[in-house]
């Protein structure tokens, strides 16, 4: 490699800038939650206050919207995870010329703007006299969130050894047992990740929810409506809560990963020692 130090410095600098670019705005947004100013800002700094957190706690409409968002997300997870998993299993083992067509249809929702999904959901259910409300938001969100679940499960199925399933069937296991004991345990990580992703996607969805919600409120719609009425630093306080939850989640995942890595290293070291002993034994 030519000029390794120069290249290295340049790329580390760029990397640092990018990390700062991604993280600094969030710090500024969170920090504004402590500024004693009527408008969300960090500059000029009017002094430290915790009152926006108190306001947030006492904001009944916001609390109601939060509860709606939470239950909506649970419903979306409950529908999209089984649906996405079922479609992935079906796509994986269905040998037919129609398979690429089905695949194309099932990934269409993630390539479609949310506005379009929202409007078409609204128009379709209106035909059955089902008017707008959070139930439609759930259906609209499922239509694209299930695709994410499906893609995660499909990726996981790539590493699945079909032989295990056949062996179990040959040994007299029922289809139910194969599903419960072999297929689902293998898919478990993808399903859990899918569920977490589905939950967060639902919480942050704005476009579909806006068109399908009727008069119900969710957090995103409530925040969105403040463009007209004016923001207060309460939103920053809320943002900071979101950031803290995320950071806690990230730290948890990172610690688990490190522990896992250490265990692997330890196992490797142990294996090496054993091997060494064996070699010494042979030499002796």
């Amino acid at each position, binding site marked *: 490699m030519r000029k390794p130090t120069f290249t290295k410095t340049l790329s580390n600098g760029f990397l640092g800038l990018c990390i700062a670019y991604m993280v600094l705005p969030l710090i500024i947004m969170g920090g504004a939650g402590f500024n004693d100013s009527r408008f969300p800002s960090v500059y000029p700094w009017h002094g430290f206050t915790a009152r926006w957190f108190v306001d947030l706690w006492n904001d009944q409409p916001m609390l109601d919207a939060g509860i709606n968002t939470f239950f909506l997300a649970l419903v979306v997870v409950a529908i999209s995870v089984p649906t996405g998993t079922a479609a992935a299993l079906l796509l994986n083992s269905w040998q037919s010329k129609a398979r690429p067509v089905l695949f194309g249809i099932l990934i269409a929702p993630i*390539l479609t703007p949310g506005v379009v999904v929202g409007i078409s959901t609204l128009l379709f259910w209106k035909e059955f006299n089902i008017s707008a409300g959070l139930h439609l938001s759930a259906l609209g969100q499922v239509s694209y969130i299930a695709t994410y679940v499906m893609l995660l499960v499909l990726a996981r199925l790539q590493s699945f050894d079909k032989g295990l399933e056949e062996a179990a069937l040959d040994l007299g296991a029922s*289809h139910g047992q194969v599903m419960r004991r072999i297929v689902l345990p293998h898919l478990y990580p993808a399903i859990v990740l899918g569920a977490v992703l589905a939950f967060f996607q639902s919480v942050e969805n704005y476009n579909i929810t806006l068109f399908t919600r009727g008069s119900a409120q969710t957090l995103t719609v409530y925040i969105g409506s403040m463009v007209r009425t004016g923001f207060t630093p309460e939103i*920053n306080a809320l943002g900071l809560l979101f950031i803290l939850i995320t950071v806690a989640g990230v730290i948890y995942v990172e610690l688990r990963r490190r522990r896992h890595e250490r265990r692997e290293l330890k196992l490797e070291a142990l294996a090496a020692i054993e091997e060494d002993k064996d070699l010494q034994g042979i030499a002796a």
Partner: protein
Amino acid sequence: MKEVVRRYGLGATVLMVTLTAFWVLALIVLPYLFLVDASFRPFLPADQVGGPNDHYTLQNYLTLLNPNATKDFLFLSIPIHLYVFFQTVALSCLVTMITLALGYPLAYILAKVVNRRSVATLFLILLIPLWISELLRSFAWYIILAYQGPLNALLGLFGAGPIRWISGYNGVIIGLVYTYFLFMLFPVYGSLSTLDTNQIEAAEDMGARWWQIHRRVIIPHAKPGIASGCVMVFMMCAGALFVPKLLASPSSRWFTEVIMQWFFEGLDWNTGSAYAFVLLLVCTIFVSLVIRIFKVNLADIAR
């Protein structure tokens, strides 16, 4: 289908087919068909729906070309909604290119320069903004870009500015790049991480310049990721609703805002549907163009 039954049993197969069929029909195909149907029907009072006046028409699409409200652009006078539409498409392309220009080098550094062990940690840090709502991400820029905000204060220290950021489309572009940057980074990183570093070293050993290596070795390998990132970012930008509402001056509208206006202010769902269908069409065209240009398939894009 026989294969499915053999592997999972009849009961599970019926369940899987039912769930998938519900998804395909009730959540995807039929709603889209209803959208198209509504877009070709006139906007009528409730009692006239299904009556003699309720026949297919192109009227809703022609509204887009309404010559009564125009905007001058260079020496042309363009119907205002069409102008907003082209503006939206052009700026979405611009944002897509900016995110690619930033995302490609970063993805390359993460995949090939940084050592393997710190990549996982770096990714977790980069993931933080992704888990936080799109609304809050753009709201952060609403604070930063404020006329008396921190960015102008910083510029003031260097004797520059203040700049009115939230005017025209400046704020929107800045906000969209930040909000959707990661949707470019992750797919490009995904495809770069499967590239064998030996190939790069081989090219170096044979005397290729760095730009030749990128053009001949790395970019061809990263194509599926680049295609996927471009499609996602373009679609999300063109369909963005909150960022333009928050970060543009009121006179600079986004196409989705026009759709919203038809729906919630005009209560004319038919014209709204026609506009939404045009938006869907432009995204479909973009996807097929990308598939053509990069010579990838649909499965590469959805990963």
